[in-house]
């Protein structure tokens, strides 16, 4: 075990994957100079060695600022023997390549009757919460959950970032990895040996018996903090981090809610058609009878992200807003309507 930051763990996984398989390449804007911190040296960013020196220009490639061309080329490369890791830097830039994601990356295996293999990972950072304004603060993973054919991971801890990325690179399905910048500096003990966390398996971040909080990405540490606060008041909160959004570990979520009878879902994305909406619907459809209180979603509102720090801070789930939602589900009698929490 060694202490790694979230970014350092991603760098470690990329290094392991590059060492393990010659067919793995990294392409993206500014990857050669390690601008985003996962292809270089330095303790807090990517540990040990510079990727460009180590793997050379053939396998570490700066691209032009051409997201549509990059994503399409990565798909074509994946279909013909490479296993690209594409660093798209900000997740807001994925929109530039929407056609390639939806029409090529997601559909080619199916549409061509299984002839196309699509071993490619698209990494992007969600820069929300950093006062970058509306064009850089997106949390777009729910849009892509609506595209069959893609798999989606959203690791919340350094260990998960490392283990999930290894599985993603080894997968023959296309995978989008959404990494929250608010988590970049999170540190924990991580196994420095190779390990793989399977896709589609949730992690129980904290065990509890009264309320289940399903939390996503940077909402996970907020939910754990809220759970600790509520523990002081005698409420036992279980925090489930799905880690993979497609495929979703439905069983883990249903098992937990069947046990606790109460569900809060917290995520930084917009409210409408978000992951929280999907998880809420899943629970309502499958185990409605186990619910002792209405489900509460804690999400970002359906609006743009304002620039001013005094406004932006209020937009995403926090320890306080998650704790308030938990208090509501434990206080209320069963199945009385509640106002939606933002």
């Amino acid at each position: 075990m060694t202490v790694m930051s979230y970014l350092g763990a991603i760098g470690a996984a990329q290094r392991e994957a590059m060492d393990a398989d010659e067919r793995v390449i990294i392409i993206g804007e500014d990857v050669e100079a390690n601008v985003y911190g996962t292809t270089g040296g330095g303790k807090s960013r990517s540990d040990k060695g510079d990727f460009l020196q180590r793997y050379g220009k053939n396998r570490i490639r700066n691209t032009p600022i051409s997201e549509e061309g990059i994503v399409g080329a990565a798909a074509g490369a994946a279909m013909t023997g490479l296993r690209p890791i594409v660093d798209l830097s900000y997740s807001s830039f994925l929109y530039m390549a929407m056609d390639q994601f939806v029409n090529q990356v997601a559909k080619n295996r199916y549409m061509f009757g299984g002839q196309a293999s699509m071993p490619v990972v698209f990494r992007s950072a969600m820069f929300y919460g950093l006062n970058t304004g509306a064009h850089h603060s997106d949390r777009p993973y729910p849009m892509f959950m609506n595209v069959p054919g893609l798999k989606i991971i959203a690791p919340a801890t350094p260990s998960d970032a490392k283990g999930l990325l290894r599985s993603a690179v080894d997968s023959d399905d296309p995978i989008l990895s959404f990494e929250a910048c608010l988590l970049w500096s999170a540190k924990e003990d991580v196994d420095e040996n190779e390990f793989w966390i399977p896709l589609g398996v949730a992690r129980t971040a904290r065990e509890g018996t009264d309320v289940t909080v399903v939390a996503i990405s940077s909402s996970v540490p907020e939910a754990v903090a809220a759970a600790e606060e509520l523990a002081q008041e005698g409420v036992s909160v279980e925090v489930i981090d799905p880690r993979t959004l497609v495929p979703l570990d439905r069983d883990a979520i249903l098992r937990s809610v069947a046990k606790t009878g109460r569900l809060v879902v917290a995520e930084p994305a917009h409210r409408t058609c978000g992951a929280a909406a999907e998880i809420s619907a899943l629970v309502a459809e499958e185990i409605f009878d186990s619910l002792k209180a209405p489900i509460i979603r804690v999400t970002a509102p359906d609006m743009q992200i304002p620039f001013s720090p005094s406004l932006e801070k209020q937009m995403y789930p926090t320890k306080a807003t998650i704790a308030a939602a938990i208090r509501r589900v434990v206080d209320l009698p069963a199945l009385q309507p509640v106002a939606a929490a933002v």
Partner: protein
Amino acid sequence: MAELAHDTLREMQLRMLRIRAFDERASKMVKRGHIPGTVHTSIGQEAQVVGATMALGAGDYMSGNHRSHGHPIGKGSPLGPLMAELAGKATGVCKGKGGSLHLADFAVGSLGESGIVGSSIPIANGAALSSKVLNNGKVALAFFGDGAANQGVLYESMNMAGVWDLPMIFLCENNQYALSTPAHTVTSGVISQRAAGFGMPGIRVEEGQDVLAVYDAVSEAVARARAGDGPTLVEVMTYRYNEHSEGLRLGTDYRDAGEREAWLKKDPIILFRHYLASQGFSDDELDGLQATALAEVDAAVAFSDASPYPDLSVAFDDLYTDKESAA
């Protein structure tokens, strides 16, 4: 012009005849309801398709567009699974999941067609990137129309291919119309000249109904790509005889009267037949090629007719590598 062996010349004519016979039959089958949806034929464009596909090697890659039955046929795909795919049968080359707009035959390097205009261009570019990184000597070619030539992703791809010296050929099939829109009304300048802006050769094949002219131009581009000298843009001037898609009846005459007749006089198959006769091919041999193509299409239709439709139980297959991930 390269001296081509008798067998190569013969094969060129046979493949053009195959495409013609295949698309003529497909057109009829659409009208009779034997093929669901519609198809876009390459009738009239066979020289451009075969000249390009035969300039590629067996292991080389290509991507196509919506008008792409001819591309896999030109690259050597057997007709049965292609026809069965058009009919939506389980034995189709894509197991009935793709249809006319999404034929792909990876066995001959056909990485698939795209119903989204321009969208498959970067796929071939990525295949060229693979070849470059893996250093396996393969080249890649993207077929696209004059309409697709106005999609931004083409220029992102040309820039990337140029700066990385990818073994890539951008092949514009300029049939002078994008659906009802004449190319000159929506295209600034000359498509092939756009290559200059990316520092790559841009070649226009004016005699695009001459299979040898296309073959020579594309062969040169392939040789350059294989030698590590980077990409080429080849624009081939051609013409489609049929409507944009089969069954489509546009109310307006977007093509000049007499234009089609003028192009029919330069029919690629008839032109090449004259050439082959001048090279000592007998009438018997040339008629035999025609008969072979028709018989192959008959056999393909029989194969398709005898094939079952896919069962609902396979609907989710190939969405992901594992069945469990498909909800």
